[in-house]
């Protein structure tokens, strides 16, 4: 893919890429920005190349996920081993940033709180399917897991999230 064409694609997908970077970085805006910068650099410099085996969006999201994982790990190492379990990428999400909650709509607040209570893999697959309108197969490619695993996470995540949303609505 030509660089100019790639740049056009990245600009077209930028808003969705931002949403996905936020999801991968536990909704930490600064970390999401760094992850997105790193991802764009990788793709535009040629360190990550599009092989044509999937859609451009799937490939871009895969790069963002990998870069976000590295940024989270780097931050964890930098901060020492004193990071609490709530902010580790593999653990449940911590509470979203207070300023993000203050500004978001009530519906978004409820959804963010409910997502924080389910497992990271379930959260990822639901984000990719419902937020980014991907198929479960595309979500499996982005997450680099088997289709069967993705389906399992999707079913269980949907049930868990629906239960959390009912609980939040009732409160």
């Amino acid at each position: 893919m030509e660089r100019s064409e790639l740049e056009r694609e990245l600009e077209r997908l930028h808003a969705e890429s931002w949403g996905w970077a936020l999801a991968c970085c536990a909704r930490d805006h600064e970390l999401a920005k760094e992850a997105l910068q790193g991802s764009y650099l990788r793709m535009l410099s040629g360190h990550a190349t599009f092989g044509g085996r999937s859609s451009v969006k799937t490939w871009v999201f895969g790069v963002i996920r990998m870069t976000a994982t590295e940024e989270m790990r780097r931050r964890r190492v930098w901060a020492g081993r004193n990071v609490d379990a709530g902010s580790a990428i593999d653990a449940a999400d911590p509470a979203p940033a207070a300023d993000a909650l203050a500004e978001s709509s009530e519906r978004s607040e409820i959804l963010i709180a409910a997502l924080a209570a389910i497992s990271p893999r379930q959260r990822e697959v639901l984000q990719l399917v419902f937020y980014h309108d991907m198929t479960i197969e595309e979500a499996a490619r982005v997450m680099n897991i088997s289709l069967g695993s993705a389906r399992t996470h999707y079913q269980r995540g949907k049930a868990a999230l629906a239960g959390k949303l009912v609980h939040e609505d009732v409160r």
Partner: protein
Amino acid sequence: MSQPGDDDLRAHFHTLREYDAAHAPEFRAVRADATRRADRVFRQRTMTFVWLAAAACLVIAAGLVLRRSRHDATVRFAGNGAPTISNWSSPTDGLLRAPGRELLSPPPILSSILDGATGALVNSKGD
């Protein structure tokens, strides 16, 4: 209250998507920050390489200077007229040569055999 179905979940997520899109940073700003970050990393790595190369040169130069000064010290020691171990003789060497030593030393074996043989021929021819 019934659990939300797929459409309800999708509506929740789309609301969140609209909020995130409204607060997303500009693409060109992110792109420019990425380039600046890459330049900064490149400069830091270049400076690190320069410092390491300078340190390596210093170590090599120090090693060469030390090696040369040791070699010079060895040459000076060897060339100051001091005798080497191969040609050194003890000042009390003379005491080992006892007087009359030549009388006690055995005659050479080969010459005694030939002397005896030639001496007998000379005496028989003379008779």
